[in-house]
């Protein structure tokens, strides 16, 4: 059974979503993962997007490219304002928030703003959008990204979206009273954060990946159990469903 890294990411991320919960998802892999979860183990998962849709059911083959377009509102039960959606997040209604990122540090902080100095960046990235808000307000924040050494760096050029912020109760000290980063899903591993150090650590490996490879693709020191768990490979059903969601491979690449 062969699959691509992006298919693996979507499937692995979908498995983290429990039934009956509410997930704040962006377009691309997050919406693929959430839609897949609804088709498999979590039929009562509610999907919310920042453009302003609650309970949407994206049409296979017609996934939205942005969260504010009408495809993202398909079969939604409510279309509140963008500000209102984020205020619902701040109030505490949303269980999961998905984030990606150009740079991620050992504390799960994310940079999607600038490479280089903020005043005169070497690379101007697109910016936060709702990522910073999702990171501040959702109850369980899940980072989903390709595992590349240039992404996983010891120190960010800019913290766009706060994760654990720093060692110990860094997040709390920054004033973030709620939520935390619970998982980092990549095409090589599933990671969480050591409560003692606040740093990222390997929980389980993707099929075919080994710890040396994960560490090679990580720009900071990464703890791991001697024998990390092994994640099950995507099932045929999962792959068929995720491919049917995006037959043109707009997001699966």
């Amino acid at each position, binding site marked *: 059974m062969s699959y691509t890294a992006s298919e693996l990411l979507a499937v692995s991320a979908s498995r983290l979503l429990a039934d009956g919960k509410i997930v704040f998802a962006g377009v691309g892999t997050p919406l693929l993962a959430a839609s897949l979860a609804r088709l498999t183990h979590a039929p009562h998962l509610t999907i919310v997007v920042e453009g302003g849709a609650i309970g949407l059911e994206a049409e296979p083959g017609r996934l939205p490219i942005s969260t504010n377009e009408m495809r993202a509102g398909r079969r939604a039960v409510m279309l509140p304002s963008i500000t209102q959606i984020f205020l619902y997040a*701040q109030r505490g209604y949303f269980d999961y928030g998905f984030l990606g990122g150009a740079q991620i540090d050992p504390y799960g902080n994310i940079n999607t703003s600038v490479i280089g100095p903020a005043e005169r960046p070497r690379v101007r990235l697109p910016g936060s959008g*709702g990522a910073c808000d999702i990171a*501040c307000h959702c109850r369980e924040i899940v980072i989903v990204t390709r595992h590349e050494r240039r992404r996983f760096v010891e120190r960010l050029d800019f913290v766009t979206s706060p994760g654990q912020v720093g060692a110990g109760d860094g997040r709390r000290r920054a004033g973030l009273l709620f939520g935390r980063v619970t998982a980092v899903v990549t095409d090589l591993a599933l990671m969480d954060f050591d409560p003692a150090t606040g740093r990222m650590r390997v929980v389980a490996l993707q099929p075919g990946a080994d710890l040396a490879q994960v560490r090679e693709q990580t720009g900071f020191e990464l703890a791991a159990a001697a024998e990390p768990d092994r994640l099950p490979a995507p099932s045929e059903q999962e792959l068929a469903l995720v491919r049917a969601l995006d037959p043109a491979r707009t997001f699966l690449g």
Partner: protein
Amino acid sequence: MATVTFVEARRRLEAKARPMRDKRMAAADAASLVRDGDHVAIGGCLYSRTPMLLLREVLRHRRRDLVLSRNLMCYEGELFLVSGASRDLVTSWVGIGLPWGLSRIVREFVEGGRARLEEWSHLAIGLRYHAGAMGVPFLPTLSMLGSDLLRTTGARTMTCPFTGEQLCLVPALFPDVALIHVHRADPFGNAQIDGYPHMDLDIAAAAQTVVLSAEEIVDPEQIRRTADRTAIPFFAVDAVVEAPYGAYPHECYGLYEADLDHIDAYARRVAAEGAAAVRAYLDEYVYGPATLEAFLELFGAGRLLRQSRSARELTGRWT
């Protein structure tokens, strides 16, 4: 850049008469309400309900030194940068969408020091407009705590006097002009929006001057019969421009989908050729067509109908 305080914003608003009068005007006249140096807030979001006709008219007026603010900025930002109309963007995100990657134009301008991009979180932008609409100087939030956005923006922190917790305060934003596209408005400016409201209710109430384009200008009696659908009241509005397909090639909920083929062609050409492609686009699609009709002719009736049909199917409004 100079910011308008809530005190100045209210005094400016008080200086203006606001009778319920006929505010219909041609797009060109409405766009002339935008002056050089103005802070212009753009309604809708990314490629949804963008006031494209009004933006084209502002570009045709060759305004300078505009500050543009928007929740998520699409390629209209590129048009304003390359045309020279603006060097200051205030937003939470700029690009077109996931498949098109980074904006080459924004990168060139910002990395080259020729433009400034002031980034806030998406909620922070929304709260800045909301504070403006409320007539208060700031709103508190937990957003942006722990983020470097806290130090690069004009946000502040405070200790909550009720709970002792740390809070982020985002300052109110009072745009000089808001450009907003709606589904229908009466001649007085009472306006209704279908589908996503985005941030337009707050933007309208925060701005000193509001220009609406509307898919349809309707009899005030229709508004009175459906007053609970009205999103923007006449007293916030200064100009009403009739504009069927006024957001095209962006989408208008339930009426037409975004012309992604057109956007894709634009994005590919700009990725390949940079600012020269934007200049060519400006000539062909902005400076060239003198009217909304001439602009839409560049796409053709068949294409417009196709986009309308898919929108109606998707939103179940065709039944």
